[in-house]
């Protein structure tokens, strides 16, 4: 019986989130009617959470590995600036985009290298690269916007495919792909092993160091992709992009059930976490909530979501006992 309880626990957090999201959705449909469930509103919610979704994806990997990546927000800003500066100066769009992605990947791998090979604490290593990247943003731009971007560059984020905006399409596709791959694709599945028990994974013939570097690399890459989408959508690059995005990404992953101790985390959960926070943000504005509190939403949702989960478990335990 003790064992079968574990089986029930699969998807527990996801279930909590789905129920919460559904309740909020239904409530809002009644309270605000068409204003809320209009296609354009849903589309707006999704297109605005696309950056969060990408960063939270990368963060989920890092958390599964038992680490944390504070640099994503700054990497996003710097990748965006690199891409926009290149695009602005007439370098072909493809090259600019690739440069942003490559840069994100490189910084991620650098973090991974410090953490895996030199055994620097993830918090410290990524905090260091966070300051460096954020500082470089200002060094490169002096705080000015990088605007006047070519049409081709802007269209990556602004275009749409089969009536779905590219931004949503790209981020959701990447999310789904990673979610599926993380279950079945060996190199990604290895992350769970490394996060659960690094020493055992190493002795089982899994190259833990490489896996860690890849994990942080993916996190950086996601920041690079988000940078291209964000700069394209807003039509400009700026050094202040992505401020405190790392905190949002961590919150979303934890709301989705990722365990900071490593080895646990689900991409579906993370996606639901991102959606929940975005939805509550939307509700908050729909009801003209005080601007003072908008920053606290993801923190409050984190505590609420986890508390609901804990209470649900307690009730279930009492019932089975």
């Amino acid at each position, binding site marked *: 019986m*003790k064992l079968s*309880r574990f089986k029930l626990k699969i998807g527990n957090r996801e279930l909590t989130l789905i129920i919460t999201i559904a309740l909020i959705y239904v409530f809002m449909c009644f309270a605000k009617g068409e204003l809320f469930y209009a296609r354009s509103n849903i589309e707006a919610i999704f297109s605005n959470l696309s950056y969060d979704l990408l960063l939270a994806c990368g963060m989920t990997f890092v958390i599964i590995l038992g680490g944390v990546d504070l640099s994503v927000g700054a990497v996003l800003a710097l990748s965006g600036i690199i891409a926009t500066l290149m695009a602005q100066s007439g370098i072909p769009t493809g090259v600019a985009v690739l440069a942003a992605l490559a840069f994100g990947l490189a910084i991620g791998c650098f973090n991974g290298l410090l953490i895996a090979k030199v055994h620097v604490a993830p918090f410290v290593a990524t905090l260091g690269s966070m300051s460096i990247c954020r500082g470089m943003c200002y060094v490169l731009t002096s705080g000015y916007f990088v605007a006047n971007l070519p049409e081709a560059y802007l269209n990556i984020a602004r275009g749409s495919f089969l009536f779905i905006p590219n931004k949503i399409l790209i981020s959701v596709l990447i999310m789904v792909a990673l979610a599926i791959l993380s279950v*079945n694709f060996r190199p990604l*599945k290895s992350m769970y092993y490394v996060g659960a028990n690094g020493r*055992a994974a*190493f002795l089982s013939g899994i190259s833990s160091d490489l896996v860690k570097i890849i994990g942080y690399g993916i996190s950086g890459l996601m920041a690079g992709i988000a940078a291209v989408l964000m700069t394209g959508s807003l039509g400009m690059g700026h050094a202040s992009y992505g401020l405190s995005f790392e905190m949002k990404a961590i919150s979303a992953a934890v709301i989705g059930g990722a365990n900071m101790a490593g080895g*646990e985390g689900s991409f579906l959960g993370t996606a639901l976490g991102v959606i929940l926070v975005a939805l509550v943000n939307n509700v908050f504005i729909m009801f003209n909530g005080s601007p003072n509190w908008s920053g606290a939403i993801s923190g409050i949702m984190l505590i609420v979501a986890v508390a609901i989960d804990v209470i649900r478990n307690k009730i279930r335990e009492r019932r*089975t006992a």
Partner: protein
Amino acid sequence: MSVLELKNITKSFGANKVLTDVNMQFEKGEIHSIIGENGAGKSTLMKIIGGIYRADSGEVILDGKPIVMHSPIEAYAHGIGIVHQELSIVGNMTVAQNVFVNCEPVYKAGFINWKKMNSDAKAALAEVGADIDPTEIAGNLSVGMQQIVEIAKVIAKKVRILILDEPTSALSDKEADRLFEILDDLKKKGVSIIFISHKLNEIIRISDKVSVLRDGVRTGTLTRDEMDEATIIRMMVGRDLGRLYPPRASSRDGQVILSSKGLSRKNKFNNIDFSLKKGEILGVFGLVGAGRTEVALSVFGADGLDEGTVYLNGEEISFRSPSDAVAHGVCYLSEDRKISGLFVDMEVRENVVSACLRSVCSRAGFLNQGMISQITDDYIKELDVHPSDCSRFRIRNLSGGNQQKILFAKWLAAKPSVLIVDEPTRGVDVGAKSMIHSILRRLAESGMAVMMISSELPEILGVSDRVMVMSEGRKTAEFEAEGLTEETVMNAVFSMDGGLK
């Protein structure tokens, strides 16, 4: 009147009943051993006495008065101390701090008296016959030494009832002998000792009484004159265990698969030669700290080598990492299953395929879930893992013996041609032990070369075909196992010069 009496103790975790109506009496100045298979409830019972768990029903009666304890601190206040199975030494603190954790000698204002603490620690360590500097950082000591510190830590609290949970599993025989002398001494001073062990010979040697637990029920208590191995085993497993060890290799002329020449690593081992033949089990014996595990890890590619060469099938090879070794069919089953063997929070099926992920995925790298389930189910059946539907359980929820079986399954699934097993039966009960021995033999018979590192001499003698002895980082002797006596091996351990060229 008994010092300590347990009356109708019952304890369950969730729906899992661990102890049922257990009654026991412990007398003053007596060594009372408790034995039972893994999962029989010994550790739970001890934790109830030690104030870590509370019984669901039943009473703990001390000096005739029922007591209720909520924490280890209260247990200490009643004069009950436990030496835990898992070391509870904090590595980054000094030995003295560890000995006096939570009961540091203090001045009036609550400030620690370091001078007194160090000298008291010195005295406490001397009491258990250890000459350890109390200001040394505990993490720098060997595991055996740490165990001694752990024992000193409990004895220093002047306990009346001392519980030792598998204290000798990390000790060399010499250290264990020393421990038994200490226990004898304490016994004479009137301390009641409760001793838990898997090692029958130890128990018979030192106990005044033995209580046997099976599936949470006490099946009986034997006094000194009634004790013998066969009786105890029968009470533990509920049946006779036919032969204790499997037969030896049927054929001894397999070719050499893995061999080495002059392996050295600074401060770890020096000039080690060995050869492993197909179909044969090579036992590697030595005291804790002899460098056996280090040699295995270096051969396996987990640690570097300073000098020497390894040959696989006659060709020189050097594994850069464990993954390299595994790819070449050389596997290493680690000594500590929780720390470096299994992924305790992951599912059984995920653990089983963790060393052979490459072989259960398509060329593009996608895992074949059907195949994983198939492999897992096969091994669960083959190794008789309980419960039989545990494929999706977390490892944490299995008993120690079953965890060890999963560890075996994990490495068998990697289809090795050479299997190095490090302490394969540590902390495993008699039933599972003999099962593991016969698995090892079966693997060897199927053409695998097995190297078995063990600190249990009877196991080495009973299971191996050849025995290699190591001492202080050197190979001191090599024997044919047939007809080998414990005495010969121990002589080889202590006469270093004899074995060296």
